[in-house]
């Protein structure tokens, strides 16, 4: 093999797209005239792909998911493995319980809604039913979630589809909207899914208020409304979404 002075580290970083613009252009020009480095780059790209294919997908255990999603302080948690961790010392236990006690009143339903929305906003969750017809989507939901779903007409926004979801153990509808480049999630849930006390507490903690809309740090805006026997929560990521 004819020697070439391009360091392997540089070629490896090139494969990862980690070189500066000038250096990347220089390497590209070099590759056009150097079959040795071109072959090395091809091998490094294959190595990168081979390592990527080793990824294993393990579903998150339900117990783990539930214990983190809906933190509780009652005895049901104590059987979980966290108890073994915190058993290291009573002071440690107190610290953990204090942390959970701070979280418990704030997480729950709203946290799940924001979590679901942020996943959609970041990656564009595949819709279970894709349509731009709001009325048709509402009918599709109504036939599947066990209650009549009415989807709001949002100014300058269009429906792209939706999927069923479960909020606090109850079937609910999650409709996807787009307003320009912004993605919005509209949750339609049976009345009472979002506890009044939680809604009131969140209102007090929100950074700013406008009618029934609350702004949260992180750029989330949550708007609450009711329609018949349902309550509707619209979440939009503002700013850089």
């Amino acid at each position: 093999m004819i020697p070439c002075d391009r360091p392997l580290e540089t070629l490896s970083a090139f494969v990862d797209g980690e070189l500066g613009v000038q250096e990347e252009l220089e390497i590209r020009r070099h590759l056009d005239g150097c079959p040795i480095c071109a072959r090395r780059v091809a091998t490094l790209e294959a190595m990168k792909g081979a390592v990527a294919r080793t990824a294993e997908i393990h579903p998150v255990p339900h117990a783990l998911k539930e214990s983190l999603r809906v933190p509780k302080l009652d005895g049901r948690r104590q059987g979980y493995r966290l108890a073994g961790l915190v058993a290291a010392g009573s002071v440690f236990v107190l610290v953990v319980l204090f942390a959970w006690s701070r979280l418990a009143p704030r997480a729950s339903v709203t946290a799940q809604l924001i979590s679901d929305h942020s996943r959609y906003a970041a990656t564009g969750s595949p819709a279970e039913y894709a349509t731009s017809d709001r009325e048709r989507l509402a009918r599709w939901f109504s036939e599947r979630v066990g209650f009549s779903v009415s989807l709001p007409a949002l100014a300058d926004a269009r429906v792209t589809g939706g999927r069923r979801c479960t909020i606090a153990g109850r079937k609910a509808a999650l409709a996807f909207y787009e307003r320009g480049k912004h993605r919005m999630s509209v949750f339609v849930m049976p009345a009472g899914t979002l506890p009044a006390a939680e809604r009131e507490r969140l209102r007090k903690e929100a950074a700013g208020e406008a009618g029934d809309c609350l702004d949260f740090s992180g750029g989330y805006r949550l708007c609450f409304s009711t329609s018949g026997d349902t309550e509707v929560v619209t979440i939009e990521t503002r700013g850089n979404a």
Partner: protein
Amino acid sequence: MATDTFWATALGHMSELFNAAMALTRERAAAEDLVQETYRVALERQEQLRDLGRCRAWLFRILRNLHLDSLRRGHRQAELTVIPGGSEEAATAAIDAIDSGFVTATEPIDVRRALDRLGEEFRTAVILCDVEGFTYEEIAEIMECPIGTVRSRIARARARVAESLRGRSETGGLARKEKKP
């Protein structure tokens, strides 16, 4: 930063954290413990996270540090031993001795075995890059080392994996993909 916003964002990375924990521990129960502990620590230290956009890398950093602590407590120093990545010449020779078609035809199980033979710092760097999709800057943050070190470890890790695959191929130890007639 409001706790609910932080928590919602952090929970959005649960699946990635659990899969990474499985890759590190190879045991379901240990992986559950590791993720549980990661979230407990994250909740305690949430004030340290200034930018929610860096939440994922921050959580991975906590997870890795907890895993390293666990290895040290379990006296599994062998896994922590830094194995030299070899010289630049040796690394380049290892890449030259293998071709892309051979690598592409290699079964993931064989690549995984080759990765398992790397030192923790090399294996973690290349997995964070190729499997988790982190940038060098993020990997440097997670592994608490300079970007130049990350760059070097990833290149060396690829060379070591190539060397390992070639070695096993020569001894007939690879499970090759069946070619369709």
